């Protein structure tokens, strides 16, 4: 009896030591899998917004992801609905569709059909219009908008300016 309770204590003591070790190891393992500081630091891209041609889709790159930039034509701007206006990014006199060019379903890059002014994702058949809104499932929402900050004619991707913050607060983008 005396012996078994002594063994019981030794078992519990070992359990406590092992428990601390397991938790410590799991923390270290989780942290080792985190993105490296160098990966996080390289997360900014600056665009010159004065050089884009009207009505043409240009693909830029930010954090390894494609960024769609479409300078809207006068016709597009005139016909915008309220929800399309809410997604509008205005730099000076120009209006842009700015978006992360990945389908919000599972992240394929939708192709742009210039004639129909719409995007089709080849992976699962999702569709978006020229303003970045979703028009056919499975994607659950329109294109996400990258964090941006407008400085004159320049735009910095990766930094959240007041225009972006407003969009985020109103739930236009995630």
């Amino acid at each position, binding site marked *: 009896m005396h012996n078994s309770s002594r063994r019981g204590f030794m078992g519990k003591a070992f359990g406590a030591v092992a428990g601390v070790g397991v938790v410590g190891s799991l923390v270290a393992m*989780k942290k080792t*899998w*985190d*993105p*490296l500081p160098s*990966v996080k630091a390289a*997360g900014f891209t600056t665009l010159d917004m004065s050089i884009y041609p009207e009505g043409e889709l240009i*693909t830029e*790159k930010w*954090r*390894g*992801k*494609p960024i769609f930039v479409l300078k809207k034509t006068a016709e597009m701007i005139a016909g915008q609905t309220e929800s399309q206006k809410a997604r509008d990014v205005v730099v000076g006199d120009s209006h842009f569709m700015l978006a992360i060019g990945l389908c*919000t*379903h*599972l*992240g*394929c*890059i*939708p*192709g742009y059909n210039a004639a129909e002014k719409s995007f089709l*994702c*080849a*992976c*699962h*058949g999702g569709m978006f219009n020229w303003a970045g809104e979703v028009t056919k*499932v*499975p*994607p*659950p929402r329109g294109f996400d908008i990258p964090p941006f900050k407008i400085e004159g004619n320049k735009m910095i991707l990766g930094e959240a300016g007041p225009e972006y913050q407003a969009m985020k607060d109103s739930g236009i983008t*995630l």
Partner: protein
Amino acid sequence: MAHFTKATSVKDWLNQRLAIEKVEKVMASEYWIPKNINFLWAMGMVLAITFALLLVSGIFLLMYYQPDVKDAFYSVNYTIMRDVDFGWLWRHVHGVAASVVFLIIYIHMFTGIYYGSYKKGREMIWISGMLLFVTFSAEAFSGYMLPWGQMSYWAGMVITNIFSLGGLHMDGLVEWIRGDYVPAQAFLTRFFMLHVLLLPLAIMGLIGLHFAALRLPHVNNQDGEEIDFDAESKKYLAGDKAGSKVMRFANDFMSKDMMVVGIYLIFFFYLVFFQYGFALDPVNFDPADGLKTPAHIYPEWYFLWSYEILRPFSVNIGLMAFGFAQVIFMLLPWLDRSPNAVPASRRGAFSIWFWLLLIDMIVLTAMGKLPPEGIFSTIGLVAALAFIVLWIALPFITMNEKKV
């Protein structure tokens, strides 16, 4: 200390130290297999041999493969395929075996479902087998990343995005799994580690569990007969080999097993030498490009059925349906409420259920390969719904089954 005597032979020397005769009896000559089985009972050995082929070819590929986003594509497509003598052989063996192993796994699985080999004490065989299916799937996916071609990259992008769990938007988890915002160096190196070390270790452990789970309930037979293995093995050892319902694992059963393996290997190496193209997607011969999605992306054929269950729905429902498809097979021993461990042909409604499930999975596979447009979208949606309905109906179908 145990008592050791001067050895009379090498065998005796080993026997005193390792009990090799006892081990041989337990593992082979007195491990009893029913006689009333057919060639489908050889699929386990076919799988073991295929796993060995994957392991050996993988070891040789590992000597030249470079897990670096700049070099990976060329180390596979240039160094291994052109520079290394017989490098092409290892790659084609590895690629073909990775595809064929799933064909055999599916045959093995559906054999088990047809003959009720997941019931009456055989539940752990089924569960360990399904865990093997899951780890083999992870192994196939991680290996598919390594050549770092367009399909590698975009499959990596799409599959890791599943972990954001749709409406839950767990983008942090996705970035943690990738170690970057997109699949890049950290992603390639960690999936390389998973593919060559952690997952193969898990697979080998699970194979051990799968075999151990078979030990007490023994192998099922094609007539659903309950065999008294103790009585039948005694009869066999007493000399009545013809009258006994069982035979030795080795060499009785093994000789037939290896006959099937021989036929399989001829088929396998025919594929390796003359028809390897099906296992090497042409799109993956373009190097990975994060700014260009291939026009039409699809998984390898063995994932198509579950991919087609994901595809026709909106994102959250699709993910739920996909999750359902991943775990539901695991629960089969409890969803099948009937105590009958007999072939499906003698189980009435269950027989119809079995064939409908098999046909539905073939339809899902075919639709998963086709572009998601028009009539194919509709057929895919119907087949995906049918899959879910079939599984929900299973307990009700089997509840009232007559005891045979």
